[in-house]
């Protein structure tokens, strides 16, 4: 892998990291923040970023690797450009989230945990309630919430995201 460039913060992430360094009395608090910055940069946590974060924060690489594997929002492998997180929890179930899951599979041909071959969509079954139960069923696509969904609205959303590419 010697031809691959090793990861380092983008200028934006670097500036954010420097600011965060002033806010926490102990540096270990920066581990999770730094991983968020990495993921904003490249969409997942590459192996060399684990070492990089460890070195920047000043903890062991095994500490950082343990954190990456513990938290479900950190991806160890690249995922689709749009991560369709469909809430599987109680209130969304009551309000018809199964129809949303069917819709994704029908429209994109993927099951939970899978990514479309073009790398555009990943379908994630969200075990944790998204705290959007009052407007269930709800999904989260990357940072954005979409609530009060129907299969029709979800289809339209997927079409729109496809067009954006």
């Amino acid at each position, binding site marked *: 892998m010697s031809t691959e460039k090793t990861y380092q913060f983008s200028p934006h992430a670097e500036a954010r990291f420097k600011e965060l360094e002033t806010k926490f009395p102990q540096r270990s608090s920066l581990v999770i923040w730094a991983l968020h910055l990495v993921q904003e940069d490249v969409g997942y946590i590459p192996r060399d970023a684990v070492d990089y974060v460890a070195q920047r924060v000043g903890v062991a690489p095994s500490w950082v690797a343990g954190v990456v594997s513990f938290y*479900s929002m950190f991806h160890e492998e690249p995922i689709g450009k749009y991560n369709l997180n469909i809430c599987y929890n109680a209130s969304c179930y009551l309000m018809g989230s199964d129809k949303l899951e069917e819709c994704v599979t029908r429209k994109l041909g993927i099951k939970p945990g899978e990514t479309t071959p073009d790398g555009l969509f990943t379908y994630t079954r969200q075990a944790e309630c*998204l705290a959007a139960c009052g407007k269930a069923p709800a999904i989260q696509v990357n940072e954005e919430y979409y609530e009060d969904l129907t299969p029709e609205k979800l289809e339209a959303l997927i079409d729109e995201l496809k067009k954006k590419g």
Partner: protein
Amino acid sequence: MAAPHEVRVILQDFGKPDSHTIGVYEAGGGYKALKKILVEEKDKWTPDAIIEEVKKSNLRGRGGAGFPTGLKWSFLPKGNDKPKYVVCNADESEPGTFKDRYLLEELPHGMIEGMIIAGLALNSNHGFIYLRGEFYLGWQRVEAAIKEAYAKGYLGENILGSGKTFHLATFRGAGAYICGEETALLESLEGKRGHPRLKPPFPAVKGLYGCPTTVNNVETFAAVPHIILKGGDWYAKLGVGDPKSGGTKLFSVSGHVKNPGVYEVPLGLPLKKLIYETCGGLREGRKLKAVVPGGSSTPILTADEAENATLDYEGMAKLGTMLGSGGLIVLDDSTDIVEFTYRIAYFYAHESCGQCTPCREGSRWVQDVLARVRAHDAQSEDVDTLLSFTENMGNGTTICPFADAVVMGVTPIVKKFRPEFEAYLQRTEAVPSGT
């Protein structure tokens, strides 16, 4: 517009345009409590006086456990040999709960002012807001609000010329329900895996970075400025039920009601009124089947039990359940209770942190047995197995109450709706009950 029975204190600016900005908050009396403490009545408001006022209000923690807030604050040591920290639990992820998300996105300044006041009460110069990683908009709004508060001199050094200092920073979690448990949250805030700590020592003595810390919920902090401004007695009297439950409470209502949403009502309101009047009742032609009163970890109430339930800590205890986070899930007679239970079990199985064996193995077992029931592949003994978990997981066998939450969330449903689980054993096809 407020719905029937709503008494809007924390939510007074809810629904106004730009409610998240400092201008709207100040126009409604925001940061006046801080000015009262630091400028107008500065001799009166010693740290002890602030804590006494909060005690008088009977404010109890809104994160789920309902522990009296003033009392919790009084547990922090008075000396200054170590820094002290004020931590806001904005990890909201108890299924059925979504009030904190609204507060973070729409009304962040109430929580911020409450945290500053807590800092003054506890002689702390540092606060941290731990937000659930999924709350991106909420995080942006909170960051913007913190900047506004710094610019106005409400945060930082020499606040309003008082010589007092309070700094506030945000922290984003990354997808782990357990980090809502306060000691797991502190571990996470220290950059580690979210494994709950053994208690004691409690965070009041040994919390963040081993220093005295208070951890409180977003809604708890948001109530504090109103208590200082209008008095603890005034706040306590807003409650209409048991005097030990003071004030108003936010309820997140979801499921089969006409108007789901976040509502602020006096503690002690009959549950029936919230469902049928505040939330507009059930959908046409439907009957009530059950209510989960305080998030998925609180024992379910049947329609009969819900009939006479009162929305305060004591009223819920009388029915063997809890007010929890106020995450109310309403189920009508179209609900397939087996599938509903499975969804809750699926969630717990995914979210056990894995530290303690009874919890890690137990929550998986509960899910597996329910998966068999749901697939019509279970024996009648399996239903008894589901009930037997009560003795084997939770009950002090684990470091934190997660395992108890699984038991309380699942077992009462199986007990109270047992015939529907048994019907699944024999049927060959899933038919929602009541249809």
